[in-house]
């Protein structure tokens, strides 16, 4: 079933088997593998909070977790990438190749897609933020990024997260929708996600973020 809130690849048309992915990852983690999620976006889009919700959910589920963050210039509208890694025992906080990329902006998805493992998935928010260089230089913002991504991988899901979040009256909950979508793939139990959201988002935004998480979770089912 194709929802009009997402446009996604061919494989999505025949429905992603989430239970398969959950089972696969549960086994891989039991065998000592580390699951790496890369979070990409533009400074100010809320990558720090998003990675906090994801990492604490994994921690509550009994996994070892490491997170790599970007501070300092992050608020100045630059390209920002962080990673969350989970497993029985995690060493490096910085991911090499990622099993999942969550991108809060389309151009940033393109920038970091070379970090995606061959069988990795990319979950992409349908947002375009023009870098200032587009206005002053000869470079232009790529016309249509989706086909470019498709030429690299079929495993991508474009989510109109901001639109959905606006319908919930809180555009800032868009990132939680993407996490809801991710939660279908990775073996973190539902109650740990909920607990982590409650613990980490601002007090008065808990309800809307819980709703956003549900929206993201059911979006491709």
């Amino acid at each position, binding site marked *: 079933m194709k929802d009009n809130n997402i446009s996604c690849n061919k494989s999505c048309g025949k429905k992603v088997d989430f239970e398969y992915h959950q089972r696969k990852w549960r086994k891989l983690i039991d065998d000592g593998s*580390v699951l790496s999620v890369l979070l990409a976006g*533009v*400074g100010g889009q809320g990558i720090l909070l998003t990675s*906090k919700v994801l*990492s*604490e959910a994994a*921690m*509550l*589920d*009994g996994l*070892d*977790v*490491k*997170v*790599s*963050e*970007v*501070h*300092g*210039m*992050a*608020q*100045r*509208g*630059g*390209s920002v990438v962080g990673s969350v890694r989970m497993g029985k025992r*995690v*060493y*490096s*906080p*910085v*991911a*090499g190749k990622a099993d999942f990329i969550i991108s809060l902006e389309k*151009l*940033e998805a*393109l*920038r970091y897609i*070379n970090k995606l493992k061959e069988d990795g998935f990319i979950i992409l928010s349908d947002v375009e933020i*023009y*870098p*200032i*260089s*587009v*206005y*002053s*230089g000869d*470079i*232009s*913002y*790529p016309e249509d990024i989706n086909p470019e991504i498709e030429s690299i991988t079929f495993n991508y899901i474009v989510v109109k997260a901001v639109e959905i979040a606006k319908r919930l009256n809180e555009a800032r909950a868009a990132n939680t929708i993407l996490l809801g979508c991710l939660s279908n793939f990775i073996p973190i*139990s539902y*109650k*740990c996600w909920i*607990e982590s959201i409650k613990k980490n988002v601002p007090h008065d935004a808990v309800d809307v973020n819980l709703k956003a998480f549900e929206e993201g979770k059911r979006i491709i089912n």
Partner: protein
Amino acid sequence: MVNLKNLKLLTGNEAIAQGAYEAGVKIAAAYPGTPSTEILENISKYKEIYCQWSVNEKVAMEFASGSSIAGARTLVAMKHVGLNVAADPFMTLSYTGINGGLVIVFADDPGMHSSQNEQDNRYYSKFSKIPMLEPSDSQEAKDFVKEALNMSEKFDTPVIIRTTTRISHSRSMVRVGERCNSKSGSYKKNCQKYVMIPAYGMQRHRVLLERWEKLTKFSENSELNKTYNPPDISLDGNVGIITSGISYQYVREVFTNTPILKLSITSPVAKRTVKEFAKGKKLLIIIEELEPFLEEQIKEANLGIKIIGKEYFPQFGELSLEILEDLYDEIFGTSLFKAISSGNTNSGNIKPEGNVKAPDPGSIPQRPPVLCAGCPHRPVFYILKKLKTVVMGDIGCYTLSVLPPLSSLDSCLCMGAGIGQALGMEKADPELKGRIVSVIGDSTFFHSGITPLIDSVYNKSSGLIIILDNRTTAMTGRQVNPGIGKTLMGETTFEEKPEVIARAAGIKNVKVVNPYNLIFLEKTIKEELGKQELSVIVSRQKCVLLDRTKSSERVYIDVVECAECGLCLKFGCPAIEYRNNEYTINELLCTNCKVCIDICKKGAIKVGDK
């Protein structure tokens, strides 16, 4: 769901703050600098610790020395280049030693995420003979604060904790504990220890050399330096890796079958420990970021086996899993390992060609950080570019004005450099007179702008100094400073005014302007540039990130009146957009500073109701 109890997911900086709390630190000081800033910000959450932003790193170091002499356990933190500022007290602190335990944290920035260079501060330890600990995750970052303080008090020396960005800004799990109350010593006069006149200094230098010997033995017996022997070393047991800090984590993940010596005390290097580790091995690989600091010292130990290091790694930037994976293939997949296994270490060319990964050339538009929409620095640089001035810059958000379209900065060297540089240029080339401007932020001015300001008066400068007072230390995340009237602990204090300081220094031409008033700003800059004596303009408007008040107005571009000249894009405000052949203002980003209204020559940018 597991009960996390006292387990927390902390950054290295948060962990150091927690470590300071648990170890009974009583006094802490710093000047903000990425990636070290959050150490003091987090320490300020513990009411048991007196903490302060010092005006710069040198003062912070001196303050910490005093607090230690008076008997309190003390922590001082700074970024790597901050230690350059504090190097003077630092180098002699190793002579005087301490009373209360003193830990000096510095955070290096390999890869220059937010710095002007990537100097390897480990050499400062060898240079000063102040011992150094390097944590490899947040748990160690916390634990090493206590270890460092114990070492400090045992050996009567300050102790360094050196982190890098990936330690400071990565989260990993930390088991937190209770605060132990350190016993406060008290000040005892001891001029032979604390007064470094040559006669006493010479005695203390001998003490220092003896102490370094003792510290080397301590390091050799310390359980902080750990050997890791994997269960199955049959595959690569001939090889051993020596590493430390974040590199250890990359090594553990990639070299799963190789014995590893992880040094936590990286200075003085525990040479006996290294020798024991090397026994029976045919190849040692030293894996470290930046300079060959450990490699040089381990090679000096003449172990009689092959030691490799920097010829396989870049001497710049950060290491990564990818770089180590390539190295792994290089060593175990090629002739190198085979040659060593057969005892023939001289055969073959072992230097790999081009194994350093080139960054993607990138057809993708770059997205460098930019000054925020509504940033009060932007109008100043817009005018400076328009007037074709030479702009000697400084360290802060405003350094970003070097990028197009503002492209107005001519220099950025270090904290406080711009004013002195401008004077030097003016003296060297009289043609530049009337065109040279130095710009410096409020916090940077208090940090190290006041002495060159006095120097400019003394040496009869005729230049223009613009102090960009945005009422905060913005780049590092908006900390208070002497101009704000608040301390790190939230107390009200005297509010320093740069214009008052400038007048007191003897400058007659001192003006304060609001940079949002573009016309007046341009007029003032032109007037002051035309004068034959030194001028100071304080451009005062608070940082847009401080607080955003909601406005009932909106700024928009009237499409009918817009001549599509593109001049407004030259202002470089992220809120002014050009899409689908139309100039628009992004309401979400616009802060209603209204400066662009004066930029548009056609009057097409207007204010309306929301």
